[in-house]
């Protein structure tokens, strides 16, 4: 099977960096290894296990990945009712109908990784 993909400049740079760091010469070898890693992560998450990085003293970082969460059984959040006033609903409606605001600097920092 032949596989082609259009990568953003950022992802292309990450790909090149990975190939250099891992001393992988062919795209197929790298793809094969990435597939093995992804398959393992999906199977673990499907079983409800979480993916984490471990340091000397235990887990230090947990991976949260929207794609993986699609197969996770634990995402069925309980449901609650929220009481709203008319004023709150009017304000909320105007926010939902309008174009979303540009992300604040803080939001960008929170989600852009550290």
């Amino acid at each position, binding site marked *: 099977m032949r596989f082609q993909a259009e990568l953003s400049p950022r992802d292309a740079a990450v790909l090149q960096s990975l190939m250099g760091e891992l001393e992988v010469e062919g795209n197929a070898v790298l793809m094969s290894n990435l597939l093995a890693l992804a398959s393992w992560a999906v199977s673990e998450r499907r079983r409800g296990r979480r993916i984490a990085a471990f340091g000397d003293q235990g887990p230090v970082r947990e991976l949260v990945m929207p794609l993986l969460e699609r197969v996770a059984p634990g*995402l069925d*959040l*309980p449901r609650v*009712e*929220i009481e709203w006033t008319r004023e709150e609903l009017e304000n909320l409606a105007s926010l939902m109908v309008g174009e*979303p605001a540009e992300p604040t600097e803080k939001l960008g920092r929170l989600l852009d990784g550290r």
Partner: protein
Amino acid sequence: MPLLIRRLERADIVSSFDCGDQELNHYLQRFAWQNQQRHSVGTTYVAAVAEAPKVVIGFYTLAASGIPVASFPEDWRRRVSPYREAPVLLLARLAVDRRFQGRGVGAELLTHALELALAVRGTIGCRGVVVEAYPAAVSWYEAAGFVTVTTSPTETRTRKLFLDLRQVEKAKGGAASEAPGRFL
């Protein structure tokens, strides 16, 4: 300070948790576990450090909710959603132990909650995140993009704020389904 953020577990140590607010302390110590396991009215995620992975130093509680479209003022209904309900997530509580305040733990918890919200949006759909915040915390949420929707004094001590997940997607640089994961 590397943090582990995960779902609350029965063996977690919460007795020493003190965020400076008795109501929030009491919730974590008395109700968070039973709400999550027995009553299914909220899932609590906790933060811990590697040196003491069972000692809770921060937490937030998340629940799914929906706003019946019929409850919106009539002028807005059709434009809000063509369906019967607008799905949202409720970030009901978020607190950090006093000994760890000012070290970014709250920001890490909020990031975790927003990552989960994006995952929900990518799977079953969600318009945004609602938070019920104490007045003193409103500016902290507003800096992250939340907009206050409770603009008049109310009987409750909290005010509601809303963050549109389209804005969160923009911050991530794309749609939820295309957003890469990362280590929290």
